């Protein structure tokens, strides 16, 4: 590796180099070599080599052109990580020596410079301060596919960007291209869409177009329509796309002209289209929302009404499992809920003893 970057610089100089405050050229009078604190002109190749060998600007130039993946989005992502558009090379190399970190969804990303080379690492952001030896170390980017499959309780994660990534692992030493591959295995296509968005080219497909495209068992979702209203889609977005459920920032709306009233979230990377989980949910909602409402009559005490609200909240917020066994003060406590069922359900399981079909 040593010197490769110098050879490359000499070979490229005749074409001219202007990158990250490094300017190199070759003309009749010899080579010119400029960085913010070095300025040579008319030097011969040997001097150029000596100057280049010591220059972080040359290592930097070489990294971005020969080591980093060249696909525009991957490249931009690596530049973003070290804030390359804002910080100059000297500042960046100082920072890199200590390590530069960023967050991507639940990923804690970092890049460190040692011996002039960038090394990347990834772990769960909840493990940011955990000693590396306490984490299971991985070196194959594709291991991320398996890690991403299950949450800490072993539950299957059908949505990769759900905030339920398991903890306890690290990819301590990745090359630049392995690093991007790993991020993409945890959160597929997020780098590509993030980059498109930065370039003003994100191709958002809104709700209406997405459901209109559905066929087969999902074709029915097209019929879920409330005239000019779109509150049902607000409910879908609130149910599924909230930051507590998905770390993508929802950019799709009802249609091109009609924004949803629900916040899209604050994720780093965008969601450009209702995902398959949302469509599968919408299929079920289309079916059950087609029913007409009825009036059921039964009585609840004020505490019972509140308790039902507590239970719905606990399930919707995924907190039902966290309520302690003897915490009888919580409406969604198991004993409280069993008591409510014992009191309010008849033998057929009808709430308030009132049959569902009337």
């Amino acid at each position, binding site marked *: 590796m040593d010197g490769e970057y110098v050879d490359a610089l000499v070979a490229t100089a005749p074409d001219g180099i202007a990158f990250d405050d490094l300017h190199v050229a070759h003309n009749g009078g010899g080579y010119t070599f400029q960085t913010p604190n070095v300025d040579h002109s008319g030097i011969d190749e040997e001097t150029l080599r000596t100057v280049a060998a010591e220059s972080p600007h040359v290592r930097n130039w070489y990294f971005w052109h020969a080591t980093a*993946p060249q*696909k525009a989005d991957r490249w931009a992502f690596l530049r973003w990580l070290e804030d390359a558009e804002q910080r100059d090379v000297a500042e960046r190399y100082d920072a890199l020596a200590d390590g530069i970190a960023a967050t991507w969804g639940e990923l804690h990303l970092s890049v460190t410079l040692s011996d002039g080379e960038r090394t990347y690492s990834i772990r769960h952001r909840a493990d940011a301060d955990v000693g590396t030896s306490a984490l299971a170390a991985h070196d194959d980017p*594709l291991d991320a*596919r398996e890690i991403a*499959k*299950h949450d800490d309780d072993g539950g*299957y994660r*059908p*949505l*990769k*960007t759900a905030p339920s990534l398991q903890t306890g692992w690290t990819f301590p030493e990745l090359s630049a291209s392995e690093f991007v591959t790993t991020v*993409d295995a945890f959160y*597929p*296509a997020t*780098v*590509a*869409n993030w980059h*498109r968005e930065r370039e003003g080219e994100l*191709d958002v*497909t809104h709700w209406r177009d997405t459901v209109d*495209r559905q*066929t*087969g068992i999902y074709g029915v979702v097209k019929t879920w329509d409330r005239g000019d209203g779109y509150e049902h889609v607000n409910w879908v977005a609130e149910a599924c796309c909230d930051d507590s459920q998905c770390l993508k920032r929802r950019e799709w709306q009802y249609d091109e002209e009609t924004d949803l009233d629900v916040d899209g979230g604050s994720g780093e990377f965008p969601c*450009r*289209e209702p*995902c*398959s*989980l949302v469509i*599968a949910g919408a299929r079920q909602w289309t079916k059950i929302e087609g029913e007409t409402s009825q009036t059921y009559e039964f009585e609840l005490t004020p505490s019972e009404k509140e308790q039902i609200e507590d239970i719905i909240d606990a399930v919707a917020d995924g907190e039902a499992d966290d309520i302690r066994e003897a915490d009888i003060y919580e409406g969604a406590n198991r004993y409280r809920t069993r008591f409510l069922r014992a009191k309010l359900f008849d033998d057929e399981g009808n709430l308030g003893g009132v049959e569902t079909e009337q």
Partner: protein
Amino acid sequence: MDEALVIAAHGSHLNAESSTPTYDHADTIRATGAFGEVRESFWKEEPSFREALRTVDADEVYLVPLFISEGYFTEQVIPREFRLEDWDPELWDSDGTSATNATLAAEDTDQTVHYCGPVGTHDSMSDVIVQRAESVTGDPDVGEGFGLAVVGHGTERNENSAKAIQYHADRIEERGRFDEVQSLFMDEDPEVDDVADYFESDDIVVVPLFIADGFHTQEDIPEDMGLTDDYRTGYDVPTTVEGHDIWYAGAVGTEPLMADVVLERAADAGADVSSAIEQVREETGGAKPATGD
């Protein structure tokens, strides 16, 4: 620029193992180095069909559906979701089991996509079924004294689904290796429930033509055939049912040789992967016996 292989599979919102065969076959192919990039993509998981191409650097992509039959998914869903311009099922010129490939442009990425027929209707799929029978019996020469049942869904959702099963059953029967070959279905006659009625041989290998193990292959079919009353308690391979020894193989798609069929599809579409095919055949030719529990 390099060429890429993109595998399109169904995936699942509920079953964590649905994607496993896709990952496994992709890894096998990746290891050959035949493509600059190999990418898995899913209808129900991520990367989605909609967004897989943009994660790939190559300008030229071989897109192979890891699906059993031609029809709804391969002719409508995949081309639509991958945004393949000017797709028309006629381009495959297929009778339901003879899909070829078509070269199209992807609307959102401008990549050139060689859209291939599904693995399930490729001729070499017959070899995978036979290999699956070898794996489950642990006998590389299995055939004599054995019946082979190829099991599929039936026509309920896709009329070509039964065609693919029948196609391979016929091809294997013509080879004369097994004493009897029969296609059976889950939701129509001849039904898999009555497997013992359709064979005279004492030993019957049952190979479901499914890509991944899941509800159908692990719960329905074993219970329907009477291998077990409750799939959770497992079953022996073989299990004796009505005097026949049933060697139940589980989903054919988990057989390592499936990677070969993916490569064959790409090769038919012009990918230069002959040495990878050789390598994969060699590596996956001697799979270990599978067990049913």
